[in-house]
């Protein structure tokens, strides 16, 4: 089959121990693409309404992208989809590494697991064998130990492992799934779904070929893309990124960002390039979202300046098919010898959000969280929440073995995370994220729990870029910083290839960003649609930031599958997937309005100092406008029954 995709999925029922292949009709790929779109189609149809996310009826999908393995670049992302136990809604997590081609090399675009095993098991799959195997001896081991043990046991070239750590085993609702010894598909709490199914790992060792329709054309487009990626002029030193951020804060105008700048930062440092720039701009939430850049000034953020991370970087780490390599393996001098270079999100969640300046503790906790299999954003956010509860006297030293949870105390952050990872003492209460913890603590703690529908948002302040407020609140998987923002839209430069979508001028007044306008929703809708195309194709968001003329995702898709769709057609496909995911939520009783992010993140009440002083985001209007963009009911966010029927079946 020369289409780039494999045309088949594997379905595993852990209760009955049955394993079977299913052929997926071409129309499904045309309507929803592969990857997350195919996953949404399966899960919408297969998970019964109101299924318990931790019960046997929930289905977990491990998805590869349509473009993975076709010779395209930045297309090594794999995705895990399922009903989220953290939010009760559509759950998705996206991860790099080398697991995505491994799914296709076994002959599948996705592997779906339902049911529940009585004892710990792992799934093994290669060209011949598909087996549920015993994992009793692995239960309790961390993700690195598990991966090492399984690679040794199966002893096959290029075997790849996705597994959970002790956090997933103990059904922590903020646990994720690890590959490549600590790269996490962290969000939506899907590690807990594996834990509940007692599925410790999925091990893949296939060797099948992935055959696109026109590999030469794909390679030609890849070479264009690579030339842009390799363009790397010398750049300033790490700490100098801070004044750049400050300048962006002070200027009354915005220079529309060409993603090439961010690409240069990523190639040099990785996402930690933003450690100082973002707080200065007002993009990083500080002190559990109540602080500002004034609380986390240059001198405080200096200890985590980008150069600190590249200095101990032993080697750069590239995900599959990535010409950039934003990752790294860092040597640390703490308990662990090595760790994946912490990401910006992790550094800020364990750093600025908790006011913690001790970068050694961040390296240590990064590795601890990866090994335990816990989401570092949610874990950091929950620690910050606990610290504010302590400040308010809702949590006291009587709850914390005498540890003072004062802001900026690295011992306090370490204490909290270690306890959460092991579900001990106060950690048992906190291991399910801020929403669950606040409900258990009571006493008004929910005021300090910053979340959207239960999901702790990423480290990007919605008061600085209202686009984040919108996506945190309206995405079927709420609270996510990776679905869209005003800034992302600027970098995608989609208007250069697609007709009928808003064009951003090279420069505009900053104040216009904060005015109520339908424009926010228009842009937000295009962002969501495009993200569904990206996730169907398995593309890395950072790759797509270099601009649509440089990374030719739509052309790659046509060359891979032999289609002749226009960019507008693909955005239409993205809209269909969004409606499908929203319909999934409606089917499972989610009220879209209830996923609105906590007031504090919207500037209610507005901050009285700092970068986002006086800003309040009118997200209610933006949400209604956004729902209208998709043709859903603007007052409820629900697609009509007729639309649901049309878009979820779509002639199949």
């Amino acid at each position, binding site marked *: 089959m020369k289409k780039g995709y494999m045309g088949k999925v594997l379905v595993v029922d852990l209760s009955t121990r049955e394993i079977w292949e299913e052929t997926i009709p071409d129309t499904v790929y045309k309507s929803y693409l592969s990857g997350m779109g195919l996953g949404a189609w399966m899960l919408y149809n297969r998970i019964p309404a109101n299924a318990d996310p931790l019960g046997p009826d929930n289905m977990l999908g491990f998805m590869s992208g349509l473009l993975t393995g076709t*010779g395209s670049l930045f297309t090594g992302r794999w995705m895990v989809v399922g009903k989220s136990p953290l939010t009760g809604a559509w759950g998705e997590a996206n991860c790099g590494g*080398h697991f995505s081609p491994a799914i296709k090399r076994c002959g599948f675009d996705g592997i779906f697991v339902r049911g529940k095993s009585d004892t710990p098991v792992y799934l093994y799959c290669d*060209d011949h064998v598909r087996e549920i195997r015993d994992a009793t001896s692995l239960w309790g081991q961390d993700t690195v130990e598990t991966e090492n043990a399984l690679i040794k046991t199966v002893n096959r070239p290029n075997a790849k492992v996705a597994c959970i750590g002790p956090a997933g085993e103990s059904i922590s609702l903020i646990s994720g799934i690890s590959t490549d010894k600590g790269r996490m598909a962290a969000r939506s709490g899907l590690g807990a779904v594996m834990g509940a199914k007692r599925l410790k790992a999925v091990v893949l060792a296939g060797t*099948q*070929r992935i055959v696109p329709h026109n590999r030469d054309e*794909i390679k030609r487009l890849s070479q264009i893309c*690579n030339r842009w990626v*390799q363009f790397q002029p010398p750049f300033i030193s790490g700490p100098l990124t801070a004044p750049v951020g400050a300048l962006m804060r002070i200027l009354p105008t915005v220079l529309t960002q060409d993603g090439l700048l961010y690409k240069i930062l990523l190639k040099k440092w990785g996402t930690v390039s933003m450690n100082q720039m973002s707080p200065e701009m007002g993009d990083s939430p500080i002190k559990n979202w109540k602080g500002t850049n004034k609380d986390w000034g240059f001198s405080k953020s200096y200890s985590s300046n980008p150069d600190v991370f590249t200095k101990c970087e032993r080697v750069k780490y590239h995900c*599959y098919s990535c010409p950039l*390599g934003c990752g790294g393996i860092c040597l640390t001098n703490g308990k662990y010898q090595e760790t994946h270079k912490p990401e910006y999100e992790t550094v800020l969640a364990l750093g600025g959000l908790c006011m913690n300046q001790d970068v050694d503790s961040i390296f240590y906790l990064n590795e601890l969280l990866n090994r335990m299999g816990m989401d570092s954003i949610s874990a950091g956010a929950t620690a910050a929440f606990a610290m504010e509860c302590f400040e308010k006297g809702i949590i006291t030293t009587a709850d914390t073995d005498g540890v003072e949870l004062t802001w900026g105390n690295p011992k306090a952050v370490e204490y909290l995370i270690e306890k959460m990872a092991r579900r001990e003492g106060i950690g048992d209460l906190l291991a399910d994220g801020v929403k669950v913890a606040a409900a258990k603590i009571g006493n008004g703690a929910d005021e300090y729990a910053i979340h959207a529908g239960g999901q702790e948002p990423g480290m990007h302040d919605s008061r600085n870029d209202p686009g984040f407020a919108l996506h945190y609140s309206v995405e079927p998987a709420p609270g996510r910083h990776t679905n869209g923002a005003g800034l992302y839209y600027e970098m995608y430069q989609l208007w250069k290839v697609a007709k009928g979508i808003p064009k951003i001028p090279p420069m505009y007044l900053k104040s216009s960003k904060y005015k109520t306008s339908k424009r926010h929703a228009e842009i937000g809708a295009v962002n969501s649609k495009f993200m569904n195309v990206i996730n169907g194709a398995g593309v890395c968001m950072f790759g797509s930031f270099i601009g649509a003329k440089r990374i030719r995702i739509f052309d790659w898709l046509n060359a891979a599958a032999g289609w002749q769709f226009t960019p507008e057609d693909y955005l239409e496909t993205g809209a269909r997937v969004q409606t499908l995911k929203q319909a999934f939520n409606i089917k499972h009783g989610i009220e879209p309005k209830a996923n609105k992010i906590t007031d504090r993140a919207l500037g209610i009440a507005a901050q009285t100092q700092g970068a986002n002083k006086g800003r309040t985001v009118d997200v209610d209007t933006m949400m209604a406008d956004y729902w209208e963009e998709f043709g859903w009911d603007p007052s409820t966010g629900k697609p009509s029954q007729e639309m649901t029927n049309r878009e979820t079946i779509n002639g199949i």
Partner: protein
Amino acid sequence: MAFNIIETCIGCGACIRICPSGCITGEKKERHAIDPTLCMECSACGRICPSGSVENRLGQIIQRVKRAQWEKPRFDHKTCMACTICVEACPTGAITLGEPASKDPHAYPELGLEKRCIGCGFCVKECPVTAIAMTAPVEALPA
């Protein structure tokens, strides 16, 4: 049409041992067979077969080549973008990532497990920037 083992097969089992996808079956001294659904057309069986019994999808007999003369990939690290596509493309896991140089922190591919290489050229085929070429080994001149 996939690859096919013709009736001249002597059933020596050399192809079974080299096939990276494990898709050849057969009793000793009897004609072997290839599972067409799993064959990835790497030609290794044909190159190793002592009786010239494997034909490709065009029905041409694959020529036997002495194992020491099999072509192997050479990597051009100036063009290479360290994307690891070739590492994953290799069905035998022959390609590994080298240690980074002091000035360039990226890890580039090399034929770290050379003995495993079956000369299939999939790495070359999948590299998007033509940073790999297959070359025959150069025989050392007698001293």
